[in-house]
């Protein structure tokens, strides 16, 4: 085992999340996947164990944790189930913009309940016609006196319907394009805010992915996050901090599939020997393990860089997400291969890892968008 020089507190988070993953998640992961049901009992355990406090500052009831803390927790949970882990990580994604841009009043109002896990959060940017191109957002927010009126539809929103607290990006000034977007905190139950279609998915099936519909939804002006026109900045800064979380999810999924594959290879006997004695299998395992470790080293290093707070981290953050998710896809596919025919069957755990891995190459910016971010920044740095 590589030594990543984790602090005592980080080792505690690792130990705690591993225990929850083994005792409370592994036994139920397949059930929630098959039923496409939101894993509320598990979320409750995570809440009681203070895991939602990790990404909230201490003065608002959190443990003031770092991006690396969140990555460690997400990795360990994903090792048992990438889907339950995303229900957790998506609440972090919805909480981070408030932590980064909330004023004291907003922080006091929303963060303590989110830190306790009494409420979970969601972040809503994507629309049917605004995926990678966030500037194409059509949801509008028109200021009228002491409130804004929102109209439009968000879709593919993780934790949609289950979360209580939403950070929603809407256009306050369409003529300004991306600079005309603003971020709002909107609570479930606000009149004019309803939920639409719940998606049926290839993977991460126990997580909720749903439409948010705003119809003349009145939002008090105090719920504007940062300033008008800062919606795009809020989104980018949030993703800079949350992408390592997706990378950690991918890393955990890859490690989990590798664990299963190695165990199976030692048990499965063909031609009178465990298949782990065959070089063909050994070389696959060696490659898988090496790639997983390389992904971990990158994810942890990037998380530490972000925590150190030294300037722009968009490139590094994108690199971690890109690399770890590609590793997850490859390693989970190879894990299915090692399991052979059994790997393809739902009675065995690895096909789920492969299904859960795919989304990590797509969401929070497709891997093609990540490459754009990386390349643009490298070119920009050289031009200086």
């Amino acid at each position: 085992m590589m030594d990543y020089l984790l602090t005592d507190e980080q080792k505690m988070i690792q130990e705690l999340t591993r225990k929850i993953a083994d005792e409370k998640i592994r036994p139920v992961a397949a059930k929630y996947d098959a039923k496409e049901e939101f894993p509320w009992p598990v979320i409750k355990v995570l809440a009681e164990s203070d895991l939602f406090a990790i990404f909230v500052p201490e003065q608002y009831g959190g443990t003031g944790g770092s991006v690396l803390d969140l990555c460690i927790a997400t990795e360990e949970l994903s090792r048992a189930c990438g889907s339950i882990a995303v229900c957790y990580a998506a609440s972090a994604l919805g909480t981070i913009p408030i932590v980064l841009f909330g004023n004291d009043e907003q922080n006091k109002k929303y963060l303590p309940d989110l830190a306790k896990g009494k409420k979970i959060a969601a972040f809503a940017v994507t629309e049917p016609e605004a995926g990678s191109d966030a500037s194409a957002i059509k949801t509008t927010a028109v200021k009228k006196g002491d409130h804004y009126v929102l109209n439009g539809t968000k879709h593919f929103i993780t934790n949609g319907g289950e979360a209580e607290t939403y950070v929603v990006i809407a256009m306050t000034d369409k003529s300004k394009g991306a600079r005309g977007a603003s971020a709002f905190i909107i609570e479930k139950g606000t009149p004019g805010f309803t939920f639409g279609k719940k998606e049926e998915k290839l993977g991460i099936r126990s997580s909720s992915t749903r439409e948010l519909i705003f119809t003349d939804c009145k939002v008090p002006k105090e719920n504007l996050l940062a300033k008008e026109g800062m919606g795009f900045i809020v989104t980018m800064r949030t993703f800079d901090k949350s992408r390592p979380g997706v990378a950690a999810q991918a890393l955990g999924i890859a490690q989990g599939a590798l664990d299963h594959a190695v165990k199976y290879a030692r048990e499965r006997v063909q031609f009178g020997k465990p298949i782990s004695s065959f070089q063909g299998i050994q070389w696959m395992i060696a490659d898988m393990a090496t790639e997983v470790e390389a992904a971990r080293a990158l994810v942890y290093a990037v998380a530490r860089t972000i925590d150190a707070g030294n300037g722009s981290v968009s490139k590094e953050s994108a690199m971690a997400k890109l690399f770890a998710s590609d590793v997850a896809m490859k390693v989970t596919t190879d894990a299915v291969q090692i399991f052979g025919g059994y790997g393809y069957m739902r009675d065995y755990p690895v096909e789920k890892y492969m299904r859960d891995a795919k989304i990590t190459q797509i969401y929070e910016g497709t891997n093609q968008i990540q490459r754009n971010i990386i390349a643009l920044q490298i070119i920009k740095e050289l031009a200086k």
Partner: protein
Amino acid sequence: MNIIVCIKQVPETTEVRINPETNTLIRDGVKSIINPFDMYAIEEGVRLKEKFGGKVMVVTMGPPQAEAALKEAIAMGADEGILVSDRAFAGSDTWATSYTLSSAIKKIGKEFGSYDVILCGKQASDGDTAQVGPGISTHLDIPQVTYVKKIEEIKDSIARVERMTEEGFDIVEVHLPVLFTVVKEINEPRIPSLKGMMRAKSAKIISWSAKDMNCDPDNLGLNGSPTKVVKIFTPPPKVGGQILQGEPDVVAGKIIALLKDDIL
């Protein structure tokens, strides 16, 4: 309501190895955990505190490394951990152990105020005697209820509990202070919280020696243990036996004949 929970650190294994020369457990290389039955006692203690207020104090007798078990209990919500540790305790049987723990409990009563409920797991997974809990209540001269599966109510210094029996359960009413040993049916132990683990890490464990507790040396360790372990061995596996095959009525007849002629 002040609650005392007695716990034991045990090896995490079902295959306990014995040193044939000293007749004691070999602990080297085996991870130590809190006796699984004691986890239910800790959980019940924390639940009582959450319901009635007060403090949960966890006490264990053991070597210095048993501090880890106390810290784990603090991570689950206990307030204080007390380690009772002294070379003089070595070789204690269940009687000497319960004397020592009862001495600690008397000292807890003096230093932290009176206690209402003492909780123990029904037995330890290594010794399996189920004697220490009842022994403590005897030394303290307080009532005991063993195999408690539910604490129904505690009101006006009287507790009503359900006590598991082979056939079902008894409902017992008992005056406080009282000692309960609990079975696994009583609750589901919680997973510690992160903040609890952080608190446990910085928690100061209180450590008491035989002298601190004014123990009578004659009651401690090997001297205070009426049990003498002469030899511990693995019983030889059963050999022989007969398997009777055929129709049930025919086989039944054969069994009766065998019992009559050969065995009885």
